[in-house]
């Protein structure tokens, strides 16, 4: 098992390398140069050259990449063009919030989606099934920002409720933190729930068609045991795949949701950096998020092999 995880981690290296090259190159395509962004167009040649040297911009492009990567690997993501503060520290302090938001959303989506998916499968082709199908399609279709806006509108107009302002971390005041997070997490969770619901329904149906389910019934198992001990466990494998994919949607969604609910997370950091043209920050934060996404998918894969004895650790 350990060797398997290690091997999978090693296999990530080329992917992460590709990701970093991609981010680096795309950031190089920015029209205009960073130096003019900082100094303005009126700057003296002398000042420009000095700054170029400081950022290593006078070097050939592959050396610039190596320099950046060398920094990243030793924990130095560079400094923000705006604040001059190290980027990695900022990323890490904001990552906690984004991770909490993502996990909470994922959790909310499961507790909505999996039971509804099971019910839809068991009551296939009834009005219940139809209702679940519409709910899940709505979940997929309502953009998180539209749901958030409408939700805030309804809450403020009908209940005079406003989400508490001023972010408090989970460790300072768990109750208040949860109060702030529950609404954004719900908004993000519903979008993910739609896809998970569909997958739960179709994979439960798929499993129930299998021969071994008949064997279990022939043993005298109750429907409860057939569904929860056997069908659900077998269905979890495809459900996990979709969950892994949806985590990416969630992480992307945090960019929008953190903005709407004024949560100082990683998503908000990226957006602010983009608006301020603080490219080293964008570069670092995007690399970080993509890496997290890749690692979460690895985690899902490992969970997979834990669940399914047919997957060998070779």
């Amino acid at each position, binding site marked *: 098992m350990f060797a398997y995880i290690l091997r999978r981690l090693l296999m990530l290296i080329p992917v992460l390398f*590709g990701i970093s090259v991609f981010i680096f190159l795309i950031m190089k*395509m920015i*029209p205009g140069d960073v130096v003019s962004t900082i100094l303005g167009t009126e700057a003296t040649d002398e000042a420009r050259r000095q700054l170029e040297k400081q950022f290593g911009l006078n070097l050939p492009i592959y050396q610039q990449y190596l320099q950046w990567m060398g920094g990243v690997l030793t924990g130095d993501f560079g400094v923000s063009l705006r604040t001059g503060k190290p980027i990695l520290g900022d990323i890490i302090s904001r990552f906690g919030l984004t991770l909490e938001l993502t996990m909470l959303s994922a959790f909310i989506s499961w507790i909505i989606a999996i039971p509804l998916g099971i019910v839809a499968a068991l009551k296939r082709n009834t009005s219940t099934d139809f209702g679940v199908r519409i709910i899940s399609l709505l979940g997929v279709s*309502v953009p998180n920002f*539209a749901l958030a806006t409408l939700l805030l*509108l309804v809450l403020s107009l009908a209940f005079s409720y406003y989400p508490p302002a001023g972010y408090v971390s989970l460790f300072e005041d768990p109750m208040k933190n949860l109060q702030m997070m529950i609404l954004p997490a719900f908004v993000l969770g519903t979008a993910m729930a739609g896809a998970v619901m569909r997958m739960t329904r179709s994979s439960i149906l798929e499993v129930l068609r299998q021969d071994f389910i008949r064997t279990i019934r022939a043993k005298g198992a109750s429907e409860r045991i057939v569904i929860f001990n056997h069908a659900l466990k077998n269905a979890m494998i495809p459900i996990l795949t979709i969950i892994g994919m949806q985590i990416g949607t969630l992480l992307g969604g945090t*960019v929008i949701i953190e903005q709407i609910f004024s949560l100082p997370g990683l998503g908000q950091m990226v957006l602010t950096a*983009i608006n301020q043209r603080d490219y080293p920050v964008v570069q670092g934060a995007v690399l970080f*998020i*993509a890496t997290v996404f890749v690692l979460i998918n690895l985690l899902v894969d490992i969970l997979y092999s834990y669940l399914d004895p047919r997957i060998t650790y070779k």
Partner: protein
Amino acid sequence: MKEIMARLKKDKVGIVGVIGVGLVLLLGLFGPWLSPHDSTEMYKEHMLEGPSATYWFGTDEFGRDIFSRVVEGARVSLYVGLISVGIGASLGFVFGLIAGFFQNWVDNLIMRIMDILFAFPDILLALTIVAVLGPNLENTMIAIGIVFTPVFTRTVRAAVIAVKEMEFIISAKAIGVKTHKVIFRHVSPNVLAPFIVQSTLALSGAILTEAALSFLGLGIQPPNPSWGAMLNESRQYMEIAPWIAIFPALFIIVTIFCFNLLGDSLRDLLDPKLK
């Protein structure tokens, strides 16, 4: 194809989807003739007015007619959606065909690049590309097109590989039909079914992504109307003028919902084992 149409007729959900998508398309096509006002004209003395006989959906903070803007927004949404899915689908079709047919190092290279693109959350990738290229209509479409390329590439590649194993392809090759002829004469039509489903679903995804980008101020730029941007602007005023939030939100939701209904029905029709 006839059989599919016959089955679609029986599927009520699919019909609702078709009608909804049709209405949105009509709105997009004939919008300018429908809207009573110019979408960017500011009626200064009518700011933040509620729905009325003159301004059906009310006016926004600049006194612009929301109905006209929503209608114009439909045009923008569909335009961006179609063009960006067009970009993603064409790139994906070409890459997928090449990768699936050759299944050698070219395939490997293409698929690894797609893996890299897949490693980014959709919105984040689109955001980054737009940020780099500069936010405007064309770049929004390019960014969304790139975001949707990997999914098309995978779909097409998988279909090509499946089709390649079929008897008639093997026999076509055996009797000496040239490789590229085999691809275009035989493989392409068989890849179409999953491709169409994917396109419908991608359309809703593209419209959603455009709205999200515009919502964040990195898509369609003002004063051009976009549902996402309208919704974003509405947030400051929505308590005193809820209509400026409600109408664009409703149109985004209904449009994406209808495309998803249609895509979903198509998927069930073309892949009945999921039903």
